[in-house]
């Protein structure tokens, strides 16, 4: 058993499941949005606004943003533990990634609910 403090999940399995579930959410979001773009007559302000004005789509979008953040957190953590060997540099990088992801999540929520 190897301990890890800056990973998102509590265990290897936890990280593994989160990464797969978030991938499914992102795939669903991308497929829906692509379908919407191709089926809409014209993409203009009113169409865009009515899509993002619906609560369910706000929730769906927020879930997608959260999924990107968690997916990136786990992915970048793995990349950093593979390739960045000095402990100090690794920790700075990991903390930056975590704070950046959380900031994006908060900012995304703020943008979505301002519509």
């Amino acid at each position, binding site marked *: *058993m*190897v*301990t*890890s403090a800056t*990973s998102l*999940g509590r*265990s*290897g*399995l*936890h*990280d*593994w*499941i989160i990464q797969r579930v978030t991938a499914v959410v992102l795939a669903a979001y991308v497929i829906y949005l692509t379908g919407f773009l191709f089926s809409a007559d014209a993409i203009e302000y009113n169409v865009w606004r009515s899509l993002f004005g619906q609560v369910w789509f706000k929730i769906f979008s927020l879930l997608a943003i959260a999924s990107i953040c968690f997916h990136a957190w786990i992915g970048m*953590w*793995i990349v950093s*533990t*593979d*390739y960045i060997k000095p402990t100090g540099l690794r920790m700075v990088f990991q903390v930056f990634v975590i704070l950046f992801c959380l900031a994006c999540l908060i900012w995304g929520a703020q943008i979505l609910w301002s519509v």
Partner: protein
Amino acid sequence: MKMKFSIYRYNPDTDKKPRMQDYELEIEEGSDMMVLDALLALKDQDPTLSFRRSCREGVCGSDGVNMNGKNGLACITPLSDLKGSKVVIRPLPGLPVIRDLVVDMAQFYRQYEKVRPYLINNDEPPAREHLQSPKDRAKLDGLYECILCACCSTSCPSFWWNPDKFVGPSGLLQAYRFLIDSRDTETQSRLADLDDAYSVFRCRGIMNCVDVCPKGLNPTQAIGHIRSMLLQQGV
């Protein structure tokens, strides 16, 4: 026919850094030989050339080397299988070199020890022996054959980056061999030992291990089974 070889040479007592040395070997036209036989013939030319070998028939696993960029056992790899005008032989990648083609396997064995590669049964000892049905015994096929040559683990990038934390394909194949053994009673604690971000989950499914295994085993599949066992327990 003259065959050209380029072999990794390093003697820490005299060399500042490793170098590649060229050799030539006369091979009878239309004949073939194993890489190990070629190495032995080259050692006759140059007795300072060092490498490990023992059984010379793919059973002991001591002559794992990197031939033209791919790990394998020198004793069961024919020269005719190696493409190109020159045969390039290097030690197994990722492990410290002791001398020439001889590597220090300590890190590899430490990971092997971690998975407790022996049967643990805490039940009352049976009068004669632990019995196993032919069906349960069949589950060990494709697992018990591992000869610990380290060809798989040393071809795995995840093992190169984290040899101290990632158990590696060979160790995980052995781990699954005991996880699936119907006579073993330590399945839960074995699984608990593996459920961190590195031991099993650092496998990224690159499958170099499957590509190089000289015994034709499939460590990636065994790792998938371990994941499934962890999943069944954790969901």
